[in-house]
């Protein structure tokens, strides 16, 4: 197993915190722009090093403000990147009535994301001017494992005749499932940003920077922040999945993000798929804001909770192998009547492990959210569910259709979110996010004009 800490700037040469500090010191940590040098040291690795399961709980003290997730690469960061403690989705309406306008927006977003994720000195100006940086992170912007992942919604394509023909084949407006109570104020969008970081402040700083720099083209529609519980340091060697607000470990069956071939099959759109050529290296992103009725859940007997989920609550072990740990694979074939794991248990419906559903796996990357109090005086808490897949229909939609009517529905209510397509990455500083799409549109229009 690869190193569990997230110090991609240090490559594989440093295996612990102490070592990393020494390493950063050697790089000139106190110098004006420490991260640029760290970035150079990492130039040969195009992608952040995946860390086994994306959903493993982050470990306190194993992360620091100087953690840097490389921005450039053939694929965007923030998808197979190990999930840090904080994440948010911000959804925007786009004002861009021409291909030039859209290119300008993509270039500006790329420029901001590249800067924010690598860090450096906060820009300053004449004090009579509004400061160019919010100052949230102080005079030095530390990357804090920040990722900014750009994705596009169906409406961006549908509302612009010059773009419609280039829409990814399976990108659609999220339709209601039977248990949904979608609130239109927190649904859909032309463009989404997934912003993740070790700290909430780093993510919010990035959001405010982007809003400030793109105000003429991006109108904020909704946002949802979330986080995951961080494990105490030294709590044990084996990785464990972080818990959701139902108190269960969430992500035990998530595919291994360090298996690059598996990721190519499940997560990334490859050249062989019947998708527009520009979409190669992208991924379908599903966002669901799923409210959990936590008071009611907390008044539900433990055995019933475990039956509904199909797992032991504390250990995360599948019910047919209670002593085997959370990563054990349940053997449903030996339990055809559902005596150990009920046939409608959440994990059994979601992933029947029947062999024929290999294609319908998804890579989950969720965060827990806690928003306040409902009109009825209950906690407004739940899951900011995010997942990635190469095929939206065979991925999330197929899984959700199997889950429709599951007993868990009594305790959860999807209220918002949307479907988006995460763009391929920006290869290097000469490239920008969305460049292949822009080129495809230009090529298409020059072809028709000849």
């Amino acid at each position, binding site marked *: 197993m690869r190193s569990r800490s997230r110090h991609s700037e240090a490559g594989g040469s440093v295996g612990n915190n102490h070592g990393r500090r020494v390493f950063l010191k050697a790089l000139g940590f106190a110098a004006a722009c420490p991260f640029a040098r760290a970035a150079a040291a990492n130039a040969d690795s195009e992608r952040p090093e995946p860390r086994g399961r994306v959903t493993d709980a982050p470990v306190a003290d194993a992360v620091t403000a100087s953690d840097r997730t490389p921005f450039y690469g053939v694929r965007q960061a923030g998808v197979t990147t190990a999930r840090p403690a904080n994440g948010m989705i911000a959804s925007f*309406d786009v*004002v861009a009535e021409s291909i030039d306008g859209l290119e300008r927006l993509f270039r500006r977003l790329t420029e901001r994301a590249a800067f924010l994720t690598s860090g450096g000195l906060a820009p300053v100006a*004449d004090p*009579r*001017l*509004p400061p160019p940086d919010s100052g949230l992170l102080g005079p030095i912007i530390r990357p804090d494992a920040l990722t900014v992942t750009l994705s596009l919604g169906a409406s961006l394509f549908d*509302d612009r005749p010059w773009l419609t023909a280039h829409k990814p084949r399976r990108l659609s407006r999220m339709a209601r499932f039977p248990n949904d109570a979608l609130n239109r104020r927190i649904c859909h969008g032309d463009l989404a940003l997934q912003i993740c970081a070790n700290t909430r402040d780093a993510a919010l700083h990035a959001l405010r920077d982007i809003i*400030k720099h793109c*105000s*003429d*083209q*991006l*109108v904020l529609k909704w946002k949802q922040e979330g986080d995951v519980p961080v494990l105490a340091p030294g709590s044990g060697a084996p990785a464990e999945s972080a818990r959701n607000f139902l108190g269960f470990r969430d992500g035990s069956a998530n595919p291994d993000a360090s298996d690059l071939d598996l990721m190519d099959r499940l997560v990334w759109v490859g050249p062989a798929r019947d998708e527009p050529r520009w979409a190669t290296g992208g991924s379908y992103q599903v966002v669901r804001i799923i409210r959990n009725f936590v008071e009611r859940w907390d008044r539900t007997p433990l055995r019933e909770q475990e039956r509904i989920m199909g797992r032991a609550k504390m250990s995360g072990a599948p019910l047919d192998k209670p002593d085997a740990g959370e990563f054990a694979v349940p053997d449903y074939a030996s339990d055809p009547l559902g005596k150990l794991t009920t046939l409608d248990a959440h994990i059994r419906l979601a992933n029947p492990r029947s062999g024929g559903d290999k294609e319908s796996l998804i890579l989950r990357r969720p965060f827990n959210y806690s928003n306040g109090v409902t009109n009825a005086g209950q906690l407004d808490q739940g899951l900011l569910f995010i997942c990635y897949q190469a095929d939206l229909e065979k991925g999330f939609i197929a899984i959700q259709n199997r889950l429709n009517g599951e007993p868990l529905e009594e305790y959860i209510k999807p209220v918002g979110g949307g479907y988006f397509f995460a763009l391929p990455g920006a290869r290097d500083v000469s490239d920008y996010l969305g460049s292949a799409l822009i080129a495809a549109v230009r090529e298409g229009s020059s072809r028709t004009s000849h």
Partner: protein
Amino acid sequence: MKSMRFLTALAAALISAGLARAETVTLDLVGPISDYKIYVSEKLDKLVEDTKAFTGAVKAGDVARAKALFAPTRQSYEAIEPIAELFSDLDSAIDSRADDHEKAEADPSFTGFHRIEFGLWTKNSTDGLNSFADKLLNDVTELRKRIVDLPLPPEKVVGGAAALMEEVAATKISGEEDRYSHTDLWDFRGNFDGAYKIVELVRPLIAQKEEDFLKGVDDNFNRINATLSKYKEGEGYVSYEKLSEADRKVLAAAVNKLAEDLSTLRAKLGLD
């Protein structure tokens, strides 16, 4: 002594050299500020006059006439809102909204334009509005009195352009301002006109140095004008509810960008 005085003068000259640009520009602002003062008093005169007619209709029980006068009367106030807001007691009495008050519409401190709007549109009646009408006329008259003798601080005047855009961006673009009458587009017009007036007054001072900046600002004002003109009806505008989602986005983006750009106007004029 002589050399000493010379040195002191020299030091003073050196110190002031650093501020020279700012001072020159502040002097240059004298003309624009006094022009703006005239603009403000004209708006205030019109506000008082229009409010007399509006509150007169309310007190006469003429619902239709009162409704027709509501939006045009407010426009003068909206155009000079940043100056009116220098007096927070009056601004709150004249222009606060139900959600500024703990008990919303039922709150006794909820007075002014929106309290009367609530009665006219929600209850389609002038019942119980007499005292609010009297108070509104008193308050706008008092506002004019206070502003007449008020020296206008240059940074408030210049900053007013951005402040107007912030108002629209923060609480108006959503249609929350005139929630009973949906006459928000009239208010927008007043806010944009008031902001554009300030840009026009200072334009000659920065026309050469800030050509690109002014072009960007003009582009966004033009975008707003073109969008709003689609919704023109008679002397004013159709209901906010008829504003399309696409046009609302265009307005929101232009307003946000103007708020960003105009937030630098003070510094561009050397104001601190």
